[in-house]
Structures are given as C-alpha cells and as structure tokens.
C-alpha cells in the first residue's frame, strides 16, 4: 500500500481483533472469533474511506478498534504519525478529541434524560474546553447552527426531535471538540428514505467546511459510493478489495464485490433489465470457524481447488486497486 508520510492522517497496519470464546464454569478459552484478521489501509487527510460489507464482516469492529473502544489483539494504528494501538487507557480519553464517532441508531445513542444542548456540550465539559459559561453556551449554539438545527432547540429533550434531527444532534456532539477524524457507523440506515439525503448532504457539507476525514461504515453500496473517495470491501474479517469509487463500479475484480454490486438494485427498470445478476448461495460462514484459504471460496462461483489452500493476500493489480483473489 502506498504511504505518503505528509498527507496521511491514519494508517492501519495488520490490525487484528480476536474475541475469545469461553466455555464452562472456569471460562476456559476454547477458540477465537476472528472479527478482524490482518487489515491494513491508509486514509489521507480530508478524504472519505468507505468500508462496506455484510453484517458480521467486522466493519464496525475496525471502527471501534481505531477509536480504541476495543484494545486490538495486534497491529498498529497510526494517527498523525503516532501509534495509538498500545496507548494506555488514561491517555485514550485525550485522543478522543481528535477522533469521534457518529452512531447508527439516533434513538438509542442519545440520553433521553439529557437536554439536546447538554448532550452536544458534554464532550466540551469532559475535555475542559470553554470553561467560561458564556463561551460554552455560544459554542453549543454554534454547533447547533452548524448542523442545521435551530439554536432555540438546545433546551429540548431527544424525544421531541424527529429521527433526522436526532442524527443531527449526534453529529453536532461528534464535532463539538473539533475532531479531525470521524467514524460514521451506518449513519443513515435507520432513517427514512426522504431524510437520508439530508444527512448525506450534511456530512459532505461539513467535510468541505471543516476539512474532516471520514471513515464511513455502511452496507449500502450506492450511498458509500456516493460519498467515498476510496472504498474497502470487507468479508469475514478481511479486506478483499480496495479501490476508488469509480473503479469499484466500472471494474470490480473480486467476485464478492461483483456479487455485492449486483445485489444493489438501481431505481430504473430499463437499466435493471440489462444488468447481470449474481445471486450468492448460502450464508456468510461463522467467523468462529472460518473456511480454510480464501474466506469467500465456499460461496464463490469462480472458485478452483487452489482457493481453499491459503488465504490470498491483498495485492496491487492497478494503481490504487488492490484485490485479494487468486483468480484475477
């Protein structure tokens, strides 16, 4: 993977996150769930990286490892030149000023007993920013108008807001400490169709205005492609393809990516009639007992016996296009 030292905001090297599986009264360890297995990528400043895959493929775990909500099993997470993967817990809190998270569920992620203003301002208090009450109030109001909410609404409680407005509160909270990096974990999948576009546009606007860098975790390829510069496709803990948004649609190489693309319907019957349909058989295998070799081979229609022998490495096939498949 190409690395330019100056412009890189975040670099992940060989990230692994294994969750132990225990059994019996003694909680003996009987195995590992390899949620993330040897994942590497870089994100440049001001860029959006889309991370797509089916549920259970480990995409959320990657986001949580980066934010150090989990302690990764091994690997490096280099944020602005500093390896944060082994940082002690007491130092992690300071780190969260630089990176923040926007959650999927705008209903569950806001404390129902806290007013919207206090939710948005809480990170400021934790990090002892704006100690002056007047300035604090100003900052909260500034954040409200930044995400397109009325500043009069600071005293209202979450239940008084609609889903789209709640997601805006969540975004304002994430931006309160002026982070440079934001992980958006399925930010729109819980919203209604007509509201989704509002949030997508807001995220893009904020990126242009504040120079934010995003890691967008989502399963909807058409949304990911709409906002991301680069896209990483994950399957069973591995990145199986990494390329830019244009290549991904025009020249997908990994069979799984092709199946994923063909599964997303396009709202145009005339286009739909001409499209190739690849229907995958079966379900995603359990990460507790992954297949030997390529994680995708049991469902792959292009598989050959060699596919089951060893895990294919992500290799460069064109500039900024990497694939983990021996058949391409």
């Amino acid at each position, binding site marked *: 993977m190409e690395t330019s030292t100056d412009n890189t905001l975040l670099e992940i090297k060989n990230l692994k996150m294994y969750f132990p599986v225990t059994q019996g009264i003694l909680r003996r360890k009987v195995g590992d769930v390899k949620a993330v297995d040897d994942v590497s990528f870089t994100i440049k400043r001001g860029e959006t990286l889309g991370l797509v895959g089916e549920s259970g493929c480990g995409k959320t775990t990657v986001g949580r490892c980066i934010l150090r909500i989990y302690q990764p099993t091994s690997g490096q997470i280099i944020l602005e030149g500093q390896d944060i993967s082994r940082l002690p817990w007491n130092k992690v809190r300071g780190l969260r000023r630089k990176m923040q998270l926007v959650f999927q569920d705008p209903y569950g992620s806001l404390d129902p007993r806290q007013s919207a203003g206090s939710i948005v301002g809480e990170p400021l208090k934790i990090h002892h920013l704006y100690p002056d009450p007047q300035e604090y109030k100003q900052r909260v109001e500034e954040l409200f108008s930044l995400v397109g909410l009325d500043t009069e609404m600071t005293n209202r409680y979450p239940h008084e807001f609609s889903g*789209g407005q709640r997601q805006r509160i969540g975004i304002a909270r994430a931006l309160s400490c002026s982070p440079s990096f934001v992980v958006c974990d399925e930010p729109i999948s819980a919203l209604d169709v*007509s509201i989704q576009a509002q949030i997508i546009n807001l995220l893009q606007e904020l990126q242009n205005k504040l120079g934010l860098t995003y890691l967008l975790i989502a399963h909807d390829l058409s949304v990911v492609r709409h906002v991301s510069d680069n896209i990483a496709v994950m399957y069973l803990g591995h990145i199986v393809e990494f390329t830019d948004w244009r290549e991904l649609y025009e020249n997908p190489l990994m069979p799984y990516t092709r199946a994923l693309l063909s599964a997303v319907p396009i709202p145009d019957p005339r286009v739909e009639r001409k499209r190739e349909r690849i229907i995958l058989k079966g*379900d995603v295998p359990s990460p507790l007992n992954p297949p030997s070799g390529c994680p995708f081979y049991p469902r792959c229609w292009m598989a050959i016996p060699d596919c089951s022998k060893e895990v294919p490495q992500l290799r460069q096939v064109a500039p900024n296009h990497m694939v983990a498949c021996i058949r391409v």
Partner: protein
Amino acid sequence: MIPLLEVKNLKVIFNTMAGVVKAVDGVSYYIDEGEVVGLVGESGCGKSVGQLAVTQLIAMPPGKIVGGEIVFEGQDLLRYKDDSSRMRSVRGGKIAMIFQEPMTSFNPVFSIGEQIMESLMLHLKLDRQAAKQRAIELLEQVGIPDAKVRINNYPHQFSGGMRQRAMIAMAVSCHPKLVIADEPTTALDVTTQAQVLEIMMDMTEKYHNSLVIVTHNLGVVARYARRIYVMYAGRIVESGTADDVFSDPRHPYTIALLRSVPRLDEERGRQLFPITGLPPNLIDMPPNCIFKPRCSLASRCIAETDPELRQVGDNHFARCHLDVRGETIGNIH
C-alpha cells in the same frame, strides 16, 4: 378481464388518545392475475395498514375499516367478519402474507416445520404425514439445505435469510392466488436481500400467484414490479407501469424521491436533493393537497382544492393540480 383483487376507496382509521388517525384515506387499486405490483412509500404512509386490511389483520379496536370495498374473486371481503370461516379460508389459503420481521413473525415455541404444516393441514386438509412430506418439499424448493433435518429446527436456529425463505415456503404452501410481501427484505443484508427476492420471484413463477411487494426501496420495485403505486400520507399519489413511473414521473413526490436517492450507476458529483420537512401528522392533515407543505412547486400551485387522482397518460395517474414532469423541476438523474 376482472382483476383478481380490487380495492375501492378503502378507508382505515385508528382511534388514539390524540385523535383519529387516518392511516388509509380513500385508496383504490387493483391487481390482475399473475401480476407483480409494487407499493412504494415511506414508513407511516399507510402502505402496510392497507395490506393488512385486505386480510382483516388489523387490530379492532383501535383500528377500524370505515369505508370501501375489497373485492377478491368477485366477492367483497369486507362483508365477512374477521373470524368467519370465509375469511379464515382466504387468509393463508387464497391470500398469503410475507412479513417484514422474520424473527418475530414466526412463533418461537413451535418448530418451523410445525408452522408450515399447520396451514397445509388446515387449508388443504392433508394428514400429518403428507403435510410433513409437502413441507420438506417446500423448504427444498426455497433452497434450505438439508430440509429433512432442518424442518425440526426452531426459528432461532435459522439465520435471517433462511427464516425469510421459510416464510416464503409457508406463504406459497397452499397455492394462494395472491401473496402480499410487506417489506420482505428490509431487515436483511443486501446480498441476502437479492437472494430472498430472487427466490420469491421464482416461487411466484412456479405457483402462478400474483404478488404485491410493499417496500420503501425504489430499487427493489424497479427490479421486479411491473406496475407501481406510490403512496404518501395514506393516499395513492401516483400509479402506472414501472417504466412510466420511473422514466416519466408525474407527481412532485415521486420526482423528489427519485432525486433524493444516490444511484450506483451515476457520476459521483451529483448533489442529492433531500425532501424538506417531515411527512404530515395523520391526525391533522394539511387541507387541500397533502404534499403541499413539502412540495418544491407549491408556490406555483394556486388551486385551493384537494387534487384528484387524474389520468396523465396511458394507464398512468397522478394526484397533482400541476402538469409536472421530471424536467420541470430539473434533471431527475
């Protein structure tokens, strides 16, 4: 040709503490034999309630069907009580439903096989042995591996996609004339969604039933439905063939919906046009046009009356005073 199902001016209300919710407000549509029809709309627009009313599965009270006719095979189903033997033979027998939540729509304390067999024994009067044999066949048809063993599994032992496939098997088990799929794939992953929809279409072809797909996903409708109804706030605002509605939408809401979703095959630079505001409160609906508060062409519309569904093309209807086309508002795609 007489349509298989014709719903005329259906009205469903719910009595709540806050007032009367008009969930379905004068909806008319028809479904021909062997046809695949899509019903699109946002959550809360009454699309599910309208379908539940067809099989009288609405809890009454608080719900109430206050008007209209549901003519199925020449008979008005609303003339029968919800627990009459006629309704019971229609429900699950002639009209089957596939629900959104495969997790909650199966009974967790009975095995999958038991639940499929139940309707086979009830509607087709098969004995246990024959019903079991048939249930295994059905599960095999929808691609459940090892169906002989899996038939004894309980719903929690199935994955989401498998549960929905079992649901399809159950729906087609009694050779229904009509299958209503209410958001059949919303809870599923994209690849599983494609898989389940494809099986649903295969089964529809095999059993020659009509299919109604109720969904908010415009893409799913574009891929499978031949005719489309677009619903907004309890009413149908546009209807027509899929080709007409998608290539030449004639209602501002349909146009706005199409402009608000990103497409996989487009250039990235296009700005999305979100629909401003929120869907209306169904207790206190806007007077005149229900879409006016969110309509980008509202300033141009001076009519003070409620628009009727009027014909705008061959078998193409829209509920709008203005003669809107995609180009009037700007490029759709």
